[in-house]
């Protein structure tokens, strides 16, 4: 099963990491894993374009099936391998609803990170404005506070008692925040969540290799 699967991925990319966590959780270790470099532009290389015309990672194949959208791949793996590995969809209706809600709110969190931390990467020099940078930084801070609030209200996982697809999707984004220096004292619930989930085998086994080798940034230290 896993031998029919191929994943092209880049280190530190939350969308790639999500799929890797899902594969581990469903007991699908042994898939063909190919690490590529964003810095070297390998995500636009022929190998990737053959699977993903958008030239983006992750690029995932299962036999003749292609799934390059990380949410799609995670939903597919949970559905197709329902009776294998860990169950990533709670039984309880309230938890399932919360799982879907948080999963898709995860898009807002990742967007706000990109708009703020990667402003210069996405906005050409002549189009940049301090007013936009400031607004985006405020937007990111407000968004992070929202998630701190969510983890004050529910826990230990995003949908409640059980680790679910919401965590598969959102944890890599939270990990990204701490990699960029988010202050554990300012956001204790997020820190506790980060510390709980980072030791989960599926997460530990797929931790970004370049994060182990180098210290993170402190961009978000004062947020």
């Amino acid at each position, binding site marked *: 099963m896993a031998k029919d699967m191929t994943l092209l991925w880049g280190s530190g990319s939350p969308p790639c990491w999500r799929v890797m966590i899902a594969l581990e959780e469903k007991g699908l270790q042994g898939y063909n894993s190919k690490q590529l470099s964003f810095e070297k532009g390998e995500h636009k290389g022929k190998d990737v374009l053959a699977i993903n015309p958008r030239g983006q990672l992750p690029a995932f194949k*299962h036999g003749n099936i292609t799934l*390059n959208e990380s949410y799609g791949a995670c939903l*597919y793996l949970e559905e197709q391998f329902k009776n294998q590995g860990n169950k990533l969809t709670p039984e309880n209706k309230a938890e399932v609803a919360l799982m*879907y809600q948080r999963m898709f709110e995860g898009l807002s969190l990742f967007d706000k990170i990109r708009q703020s931390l990667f402003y210069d990467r996405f906005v*050409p020099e002549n*189009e940049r*404005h301090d007013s936009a940078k400031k607004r985006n930084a405020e937007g990111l801070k407000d968004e992070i506070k929202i998630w701190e609030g969510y983890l004050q209200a529910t826990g230990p996982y995003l949908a409640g008692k059980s680790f679910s697809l919401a965590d598969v999707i959102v944890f890599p984004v939270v990990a990204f925040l701490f990699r960029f220096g988010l202050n554990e004292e300012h956001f204790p619930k997020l820190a506790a969540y980060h510390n709980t989930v980072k030791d989960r085998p599926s997460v530990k086994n797929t931790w970004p290799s370049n994060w182990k080798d180098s210290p993170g940034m402190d961009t978000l230290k004062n947020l």
Partner: protein
Amino acid sequence: MAKSMYLLWGSGSCPCWRIMITLEEKKLQGYKQKLLSFEKEEHKSKEVLEINPRGQLPTFKHGDDIINESTGACLYLENQFKSQGNKLIPDNPAEQALMYQRMMEGLTLYEKLNLVAFYDFYAPEGERHDSALKRNKDNLVTELQLWESYLENVAAGRYLAGGFSLADVVVFPSLAYAFRYGLSAGRYPKLAKYYSLLKDRPSIKATWPPKWFQIEQRSESLKDI
């Protein structure tokens, strides 16, 4: 079942429309609903904020459970009402994978449409650039051409992932809005065919937006895309 559901929505909003189509498809007509006005800022009213602190529409409750994220709500409804109404997630692995792929790509399509049609909403005065709008338009053309290729063999019953599915629930509203804002059927014949095949589907017809957003003069129509 439907009676314990409450949807707060705004006319012309694609995310709201997605949930409404799903409710119809799953035979959940009869849900409580309230039409609010974006223009009057009713999406920031107390009633919305109590359920959805983000002050956004759609805002959706099923009993005590709240799912305001439209794609999440659609997945939830299909998941909870699998054996009722129309099946919106195929069982066949290849079709299912394609469905999830197109469904999520549909969110990219929606974003790229908004970045052109509602450019002024995303870029406040003083931060607008012709270069940015041009880039957004070029990106939208690339995106639409991709969807033209996805719908190469479109026919009745052959939609984004085979039979009508959640991929169509997410994507159709965006294309309806694109054509409403002037997208050329001549330049995008497959998209136009997809649109004409689905516009009379009962769930879609029943929930067609009573009115669309006023489009600003500057963030022009999509007729030149």
